């Protein structure tokens, strides 16, 4: 069992290293992010304790995924499997329970701890057996797979936009539109297998153009209900709506180009820092796009013919 946890630690350290951060610094940053985020959530909403509990449980549900549980059972046997799972859930629970304790929510911390141990005893299927329909089947794959993984967030974004219109909160409407863009950006955060780039009968330039065109078309389809709603109900803010739409597309293109500028590796710290700069000062994006574009073209030449 000790070997199992040693191996988990080694694997985690490797993942942090691969993202370009020293593991010790990574853990420190992770802890700091958790503290700052929890402070922010507790400052912003009265439901913060539920957010903390649900976040913790969602991590633990993933660890109880059926295939994973089957693997643990076949490798370590029944008794050790439960020991490992209980210990894993306690490790995941500790930071969240600590946050609740620091906020004097002792009862909630105890409940979370008990729930964590209970969850460890069960296995769950996290994937659905039926195929979720998508409007993007004609041009797989980023939006097709991404939509299926995140469609609930789209429902939330559309619901938020309806609320925004009902209560007359324009900012909330813009937020719901940006939420859609944020989700679509995540579809390009991980590189695909080399084969899925290689297979294209395109030059690097036409490949990138094709990717950006499809992304633009698909995100128009996803944002149009919100942007149209906002344009109808807030016609005087049309310039702001169009500006945010444009910013959304610019970031989407940046993300695609950043992905292929690092390809076949994942977007690493340098690209991440550049994107973070652009987020804090959006006009920078006009410099960043050509930079990532040139880098992507150079990078893709290795597997695509010019």
């Amino acid at each position, binding site marked *: 069992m000790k070997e199992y946890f040693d191996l988990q630690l080694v694997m985690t350290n490797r993942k942090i290293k691969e993202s370009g951060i020293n593991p010790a610094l990574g853990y420190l940053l992770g802890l700091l992010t958790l503290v700052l985020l929890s402070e922010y959530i507790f400052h912003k909403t009265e439901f913060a304790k539920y957010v903390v509990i649900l976040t913790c449980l969602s991590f633990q549900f993933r660890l109880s995924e059926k295939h994973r549980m089957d693997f643990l059972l076949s490798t370590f046997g029944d008794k050790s499997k439960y020991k490992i799972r209980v210990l894993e859930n306690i490790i995941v629970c500790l930071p969240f329970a600590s946050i609740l304790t620091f906020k004097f929510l002792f009862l909630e911390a105890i409940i979370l701890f008990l729930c964590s141990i209970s969850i460890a005893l069960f296995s769950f299927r996290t*994937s659905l057996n039926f195929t979720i329909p998508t409007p993007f089947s004609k041009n*797989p794959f980023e939006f*097709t797979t991404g939509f299926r993984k995140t469609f609930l967030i789209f429902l939330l974004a559309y619901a938020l936009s309806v609320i925004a219109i009902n209560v007359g909160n324009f900012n909330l409407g813009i937020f719901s539109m940006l939420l859609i863009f944020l989700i679509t950006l995540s579809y390009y955060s991980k590189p*695909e297998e080399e*084969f899925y780039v*290689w297979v*294209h009968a395109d030059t690097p330039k036409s490949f990138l153009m094709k990717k950006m065109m499809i992304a633009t078309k698909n995100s128009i389809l996803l944002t149009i209900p919100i942007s149209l709603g906002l344009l109808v109900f807030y016609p005087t803010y049309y310039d702001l709506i169009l500006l945010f739409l444009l910013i959304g597309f610019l970031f989407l293109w940046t993300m695609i180009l950043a992905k292929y500028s690092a390809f076949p590796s994942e977007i690493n710290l340098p690209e991440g820092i550049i994107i973070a700069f652009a987020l804090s000062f959006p006009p920078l994006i006009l410099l960043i796009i050509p930079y990532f574009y040139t880098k992507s073209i150079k990078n893709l030449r290795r597997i695509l*013919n010019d």
Partner: protein
Amino acid sequence: MIKIKELNKYYGNNEVLKEINMDFLRGKVYGIVGENGAGKTTLFRCIAGLENYSGEIISQITPLKNHLGLLFTDPFFFSKITGKEYIRLLCNARNKKNVNIDQKNIFDLPLNQYASSYSTGMKKKLAITAILLQENECFILDEPFNGVDIQSNIVLTEIILKLKELNKTVLISSHIFSTLSDTCDEIYLLRKGEQIKSVQKEDFKLLEQEMKDFTIGNRIEKLELK
């Protein structure tokens, strides 16, 4: 025609392919055999342009990669993509639009289900269907018969013979010698990255016996089975 001249490939200091010279003609089927780690997959990746190498790979069809159907030993599938979408993705990539996928589903695959939920054999059949519908001129099939049921293996053998009839170039690696002797015109033997020999159809039996003798040797005795 594809011509490989003096091909060398290194991973760091490790030479994985040494002085490879091979010719692949149109309308012919070629087998590449060798133990695990002999360099078969690396050779295929070099031909596909997925690896850097020294030496030359010359093709009459340029760029070769745009006319090459590549089947990996263990094809990768995205987690939430259906069989039909996978085929469409690969066809779109080669600008082959409006393919009637349902009609051409010769292996009767459940195309509306997620490909990642398929069995090993079904995944392989899906990947084969996709590269066939791309209408390629050349095919590299790395272990196409592995994990596929016997009925589909028969279909696959017939497909390979049909591709040959259609004047395509087909390269196959397989650990099942009978599948190669049924389909190939010539077999290249690789051992530790070196091209040991090439054998024509009439000598396949001799090659099989030679490989058996070399591979088995006194290994079984070493086990001292009781």
